[in-house]
């Protein structure tokens, strides 16, 4: 055999062939299009349907948007401009209403010279939430979070600074009582910490604030609640709801986990009742009924009543979120805390809650998004949130008859806020998952 092919010449390539372009259908845009859009009959069908849908929507919306009028004093002026520029039957949006009234949609009737105050309040709120939302911030910052509600109240409503200070002092008084009495008896201390501040608020806080205000009148111009409106109102109700409901929600979650029968059942009943009834019913309760439950002659602001109701409402949802966090902690953590000899409150404060809350943050953010969206329901009880304001704007003779433009603007604003928050919550969730692996 070897004879016949003694001289086998082997082919040896000495240089690399130049790389060839992949076939046209397997590269670049075409490949992408084929793989992603037209890979099978079902996919082709879906693609065609989607394209038809997109074309349908855009063909109706785009002319309306592109032909929009941005500066006019009234709807009839808008229509005149449209007739002049685009012809009488053109579909045209009249966004002039937004340029004319955007400040109302955002700030309500808040005095324009004080627009900085809601902005500062928003920054304060963000700063207060930071220690809760970002793990990297030192825990001392939580003290600021505790003080923030009073600060925010002062910045938004104004009036004398002594009012919120006197109220805040109540908590200090309570803490002092607790520390002072706990040397004698823990239970007595707890009771004292509840009773003394209440007595203080009832009988001392008002006169004290009045006296201080007359001695040292420091403060901002008072802005009544009726001037609040628009997105500012939605934000305030949402922010207050979340900030105030966090402590209550955590307590409820602990109560639901507690093995003390009465406390457990009370918490469960509270949570289930609040969650079982729609927010709008609670809002009507706030607007129509809350006054019945308070001592005769007591009367407060509708906005405050709404905030109270929304806080109670949100606390039930926060409680469920926190309960999820508590349940997700491995049992070993509880046992380890017990093994260290920590009492209930210490083990919660130092071991359990920091971990459970961290897991619950995405849920808390989602609850906030839901709450923020739900603030639009206050329109039914006569508060001028963005939708309520849009009705009020339509009632002015200039803008009577305008419809879609206001809703588009409001929807867009809500979308921007909620979408960015939901992205943040997803980012947090991913981060948590990575850490757990």
């Amino acid at each position, binding site marked *: 055999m070897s004879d016949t092919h003694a001289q086998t010449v082997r082919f040896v390539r000495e240089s690399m062939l130049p790389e060839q372009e992949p076939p046209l259908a397997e590269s670049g845009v075409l490949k992408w299009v084929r793989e992603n859009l037209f890979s099978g009959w079902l996919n082709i069908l879906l693609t065609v349907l989607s394209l038809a849908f997109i074309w349908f929507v855009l063909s109706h919306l785009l002319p309306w948007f592109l032909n929009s009028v941005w500066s006019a004093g009234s*709807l009839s002026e808008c*229509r005149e401009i449209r007739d002049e520029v685009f012809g009488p039957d053109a579909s045209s949006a009249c966004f002039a209403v937004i340029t*004319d*009234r955007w400040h*109302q949609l955002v700030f*309500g*009737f808040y005095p324009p010279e004080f627009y900085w105050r809601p902005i500062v309040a928003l920054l304060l709120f963000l700063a207060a939430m930071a220690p809760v939302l970002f793990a990297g911030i030192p825990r001392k910052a939580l003290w600021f979070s505790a003080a923030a509600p009073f600060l925010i*109240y002062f910045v938004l*409503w104004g*009036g*004398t600074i002594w*009012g*919120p200070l*006197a*109220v805040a002092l*109540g908590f200090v008084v309570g803490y002092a009582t607790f520390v002072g009495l706990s040397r004698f008896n823990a239970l007595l201390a707890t009771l004292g910490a509840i009773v003394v501040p*209440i007595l203080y*608020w*009832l009988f001392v*806080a*008002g006169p004290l*604030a009045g006296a201080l205000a007359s001695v040292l009148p420091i403060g901002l111009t*008072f802005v*009544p*609640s*009726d*001037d609040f409106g628009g997105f500012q109102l939605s934000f305030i109700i949402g922010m207050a709801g979340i900030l105030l409901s966090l402590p209550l929600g955590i307590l409820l979650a602990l109560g639901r986990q507690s093995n003390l029968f009465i406390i457990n059942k009370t918490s469960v009943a509270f949570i289930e009742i609040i969650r079982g009834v729609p927010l709008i019913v609670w809002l*009507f309760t706030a*607007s*129509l009924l809350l*006054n019945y439950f*308070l*001592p*005769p*002659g*007591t*009367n*407060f*602001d*509708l906005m*405050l009543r709404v905030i109270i109701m929304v806080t109670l409402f949100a606390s039930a949802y926060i409680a469920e979120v926190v309960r999820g966090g508590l349940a997700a902690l491995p049992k070993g953590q509880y046992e380890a805390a017990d093994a260290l000899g920590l009492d209930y409150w210490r083990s919660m404060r130092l071991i359990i809650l920091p971990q459970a809350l961290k897991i619950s943050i995405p849920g808390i953010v989602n609850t906030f998004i839901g709450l923020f969206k739900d603030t639009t329901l206050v329109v*039914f*009880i*006569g*508060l*001028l949130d963005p939708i*309520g304001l*849009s*009705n*009020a*704007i*339509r*009632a*002015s*003779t*200039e803008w*009577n*008859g305008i*419809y879609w433009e206001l809703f588009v603007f409001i929807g867009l604003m809500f979308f921007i806020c909620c979408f960015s928050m939901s992205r943040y919550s997803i980012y947090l969730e991913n981060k948590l998952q990575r850490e757990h692996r």
Partner: protein
Amino acid sequence: MKKTAFLGALTVSGLVAGAAAAATLEDVQERGNLNCGVSTGLPGFSAPNSAGEWEGFDVAVCRAVAAAVLGDPTAVEFVPTTGQTRFTALASGEIDMLSRNTTWTFSRDNDLKFEFVGVNYYDGQGFLVPKALGVTSAKDLDGATVCIQTGTTTELNLADFFRTNNMDYEPVPIETNAEAQQQYLAGACDVYTTDASGLAATRATFETPSDHVILPEIISKEPLGPLVRHGDNEWGDIARWTLNALIAAEEYGITSANIDELAEGTNNPEINRILGTEGNLGEMIGLDSDWAVRAIKAGGNYGELFERHIGESTPIGLARGLNAQWTEGGLLYSPPFR
């Protein structure tokens, strides 16, 4: 004492009592402003302008009362109320008076315990239909789809009207005027029914108002007026006579233009009594002598207010009709100031 209501409320217990029940006049004077409930938005009657000030015919009544009591027509805190929340707001003392196109009825006066201080607009429920429908009378509306605003006496009147005339209809309840307008224009209902003033205001904003007609039938009496709580007669009197002063001012030709001149004294004793240069009427209702001067100056007399906010020169374009002075064939008739 602005802070107490809020501060007191902020205290967790919420136990601080505001003195809402007893004397509204004292409360208002101490507070320095009047809490007045208005509609969340009704063209011509109450709506905020682009500067955030409330304007309109109902709003003007609040301003006149504030001017009479506090001397400042801008010292009013307007509390927007919905059809559903208005009565509770008044009953609970959240507002001092309600000036929100509210119909004066027996049960509201007696069962809900309110005191209507007068009528600032005589209205009635009417029907708005497109001309193309060819309907000329409300009796032709058998089987029609009717848009109504909920939470008012309108739906009761409508039910009664169709039942007594043995006709069928399909009610489409709508929450706000803006939506009702949109639904009506899109043809989702054949008829839009509400107070005739509201119909006129709505029709005025259409692109082609002449394509729509308001049917001649008015199926109900809707005397709209401001109201206060039962039991505080002094406060009720102030609201009542402020409204009467506005009406009387028109009757006697007192306008915001000539009031300063007239307030120096005229030879008509009635005018003098109203404007406080003669007699002590102001004292009798617990105010100073030129309370009525301030009330009229706040926005003008009844006729001026009407013309400015809802009259024929405005886009709303309502004729005086029933709301003319009794001397001109209308129903406005102020009791004598004596």
